């Protein structure tokens, strides 16, 4: 039986970064992926002359060359920085609520303040205060809060994390309503709730603050060739370092003995032995289905019981026979809503009623290569839970999918009319599509529901089986940057553990 130091199950962002890091860290690693292509969400597919980005709307955390941020270091250390090309986006987003407001926010911290003040002069002071709070909450959350946590010293907390203490753990809506009186401003500034999956009343202010701050200061990015490029680059770096990768090959069982992992059984029936397993599959799959025994560790049970299923997405990938200009697209990312009330938009996420809000990303506005000349690559998204889709009878599925797609296109056409007219290629993905390609319960794309109770600040690592680690959106925050970072940091923990074990043997 073949032996590896580490087996990584799943080649999503978390699995890929973890595998590249353990193999490059000198531990023999086997990377297993059920699908024929790496990336999980971070993938693309081809229809006709178009290659469609599946999931990446805006990559955060990269920073510019002159002002680099954490992801640059991580990509460098994983040997992929010179294998991919990143494209900077000019704008944060446009929010269009027909009849109510239509504002585009620039991707610049100063510019953001200026734009907000121009549109909401009566809130001039509050905007200054808000931006100051965002900056401090973000920096404290990143730098001093971990220190306070480690030291467990209230003084460090109060002295060095004053803003986080005051604002960080309240809901975004709560803090915004305290600072601002203009409802439109609150709606505008909280549009990023879409990237978290819960409305402003249910998301942590610190999450909103750090998203705004990071995107505005460190810029939003696209990747040339789509996020698939980065996934492929990670596999390349992994193979170059001597790693073994198997596609079309799921993990069937995680084998254990005396409470610790001993190996993995593959879909083909083959078995390999290993010292550690890093699973990028949902922990619900990892612990409830892949483990070779039914005694779910008590801590894991407790953790699961306090979680709720997260949202999935309904996405329409469009290859359009026209330029972005012809459609009137001026910003790569737009949020579109028929109401100023994000809570109402979020209430629709569990039903087939017409969506009240959605987003549209145009990839070739800042990167002409993202579509053939004269054409456009556009994705329309609205968040949806998987539940309702699972109730649809198989023979009704396609009809239901098209009917819902019509509704989402109707919504988007309120701002960008003529979308239908120019369709050359189209692919519709429902929560069931996400289930199929990600193997996630509910088709979840950000892991568990990201309410404050989901925060890593009140969670511990899922322990209970020695040598078994979880990476990905379920055990960190969802999204690209968090899952890349989780993979990298988990790999570091695994390397440390394995090196300790080896040292003991010597």
């Amino acid at each position: 039986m073949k032996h590896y130091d580490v087996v990584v199950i799943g080649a999503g962002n978390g699995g890929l970064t973890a595998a590249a890091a353990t193999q490059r860290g000198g531990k023999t690693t086997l990377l297993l992926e059920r699908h024929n292509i790496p990336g999980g969400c971070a993938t693309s597919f081809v229809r006709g002359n178009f290659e469609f980005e599946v999931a990446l709307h805006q990559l955060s955390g990269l920073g510019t060359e002159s002002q680099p941020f954490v992801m640059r270091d991580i990509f460098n250390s994983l040997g992929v920085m010179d294998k991919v090309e990143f494209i900077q986006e000019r704008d944060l987003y446009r929010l269009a609520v027909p009849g109510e407001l239509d504002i585009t926010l620039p991707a610049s911290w100063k510019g953001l303040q200026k734009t907000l003040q121009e549109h909401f002069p009566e809130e001039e002071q509050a905007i200054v205060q808000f931006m100051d709070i965002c900056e401090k909450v973000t920096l404290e959350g990143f730098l001093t809060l971990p220190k306070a946590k480690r030291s467990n010293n209230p003084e460090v907390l109060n002295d060095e994390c004053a803003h986080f203490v005051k604002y960080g753990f309240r809901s975004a809506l709560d803090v915004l309503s305290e600072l601002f009186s203009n409802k439109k401003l609150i709606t505008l500034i909280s549009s990023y709730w879409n990237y978290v999956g819960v409305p402003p009343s249910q998301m942590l202010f610190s999450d909103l603050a750090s998203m705004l701050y990071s995107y505005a200061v460190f810029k939003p990015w696209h990747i040339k060739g789509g996020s698939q490029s980065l996934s492929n680059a990670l596999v390349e770096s992994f193979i170059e370092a001597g790693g073994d990768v198997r596609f079309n090959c799921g993990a069937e069982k995680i084998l254990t003995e005396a409470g610790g992992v001993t190996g993995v059984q593959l879909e083909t029936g083959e078995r390999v032995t290993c010292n550690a397993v890093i699973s990028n599959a949902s922990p619900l799959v990892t612990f409830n289905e892949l483990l070779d025994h039914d005694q779910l560790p008590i801590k894991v049970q407790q953790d699961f019981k306090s979680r709720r299923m997260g949202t999935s997405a309904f996405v329409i990938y469009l290859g359009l026979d026209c330029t972005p200009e012809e459609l009137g697209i001026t910003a790569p990312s737009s949020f579109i809503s028929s109401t100023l009330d994000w809570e109402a938009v979020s209430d629709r996420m569990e039903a087939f009623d017409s969506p009240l809000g959605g987003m549209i990303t145009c990839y070739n506005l800042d990167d002409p290569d993202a579509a053939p000349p004269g054409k456009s690559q556009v994705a329309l998204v609205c968040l949806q839970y998987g539940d309702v889709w699972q109730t649809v009878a198989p023979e009704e599925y396609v009809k239901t999918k098209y009917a819902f797609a019509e509704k989402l296109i109707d919504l988007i056409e309120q701002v960008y009319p003529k979308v239908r007219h120019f369709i050359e290629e189209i692919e519709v993905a429902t929560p069931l599509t996400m289930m199929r390609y990600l193997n996630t319960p509910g088709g979840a794309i950000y892991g568990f529901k990201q309410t404050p109770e989901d925060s890593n600040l009140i969670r511990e690592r899922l322990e209970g089986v020695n040598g078994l680690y979880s990476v990905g959106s379920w055990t960190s925050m969802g999204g690209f940057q968090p899952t890349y970072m989780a993979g990298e940091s988990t790999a570091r923990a695994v390397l440390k553990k394995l090196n300790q074990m080896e040292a003991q043997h010597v």
Partner: protein
Amino acid sequence: MSEHNVLNGIVGYQEVWQSKAALEKTGSNFQEIKQDVQKTVERIHPKRLSLKVDRIIEETASTKTFRLVSSTGAVLPPFQAGQYINVFVDINGVATARPYAIASSPAHRHYYDLTIKRAEGGFVSHFALDQLKEEQALTSSGPMGTFHHNPLFHGEDLVFLAGGSGSVPARSMLLDILERNLPYRFHLIYVNSFEHDVIYAKELRALASTQANFTLTEVVTRPTSNSQGHKGRLTTEFLSNLVPSITDKMFYICGPTPFNESCITLLTQLGVKRRRIRVEANGAPKRPDLQQNWPEGVSLNEEVTVTVKGKGSYKTRVGEPLLNSLETHGFSTENACRSGECSLCRVKLVSGTVFNPSEAHLRKSDRKFGWIYSCVAFPTSDIEVLL
């Protein structure tokens, strides 16, 4: 943890901690959704179907229809008219597969009809026509493919240009429209070399005479004196006279590759936008050497060595698609469309060169990092691949 946790000093932290404890009381450990994903996906997109041949119908001298039913008698998964299944077979020890469009209507889910025409120099089509018997078991993929009517943008005026066995998906689309009473107009322009090649001739003619929204135009390129329908090849003149407001229609093209290409050219000349033309995939090209960028001086019959990393090597011809030669030599990869579209047969080229024809719908970064679609890749030198 909670009492001595410094984070308790954060406003709202304790409340969230408490509500987490409350969630824990009412929540579940998700054991009840064990296997949920698999079961849900399986109902719509099963990876494999286990089938058997229920009936074989002689269509023409070179064509038979095989009615396949589930080996358990259950209903088969739903599909969209125009889609195909990939049928896995074992022929004298060679495990291979071929995609075939479903000819029957999506409304009848107790069977899928496959209509198979003998292909010149073919392998699986000969096996099917000569050896497949009633009651014989078969495995296939689930229904796949994007060659079907899409109500989001195809509209209601549909024209299908079929050549030879290209009428198979057309039949399914037609039956679907008629049985569901869809408000579409369907015009089938069906081109064959000889009149005796016309598949479903009786059925199509009968439907054309009774169904107001179905028009059939038969075209025979090598007519005899008593051939029905139009005689000769398709021309722009013929098409523009036959199809009014031609730029407003949605066109479906399915037939041999040269037929497909000439149809696209004709329609483009008539001002039809590419976005109004859908073309069905058609396997690996027979003459990749006639395509642009074929390396100079390399002939299809040259011998090359394929090494499968860590597993062995064999000799083959440049002109043999990589997937075929892999299968002939006992190797395999997952596959479905065998036409460069679905990406299931993706493998990594470790060394050497292959020719990726225009059929290979590769992702940009796959191209960059040397991943190829083995079903349509031609080894133009000795190569090593990673399966």
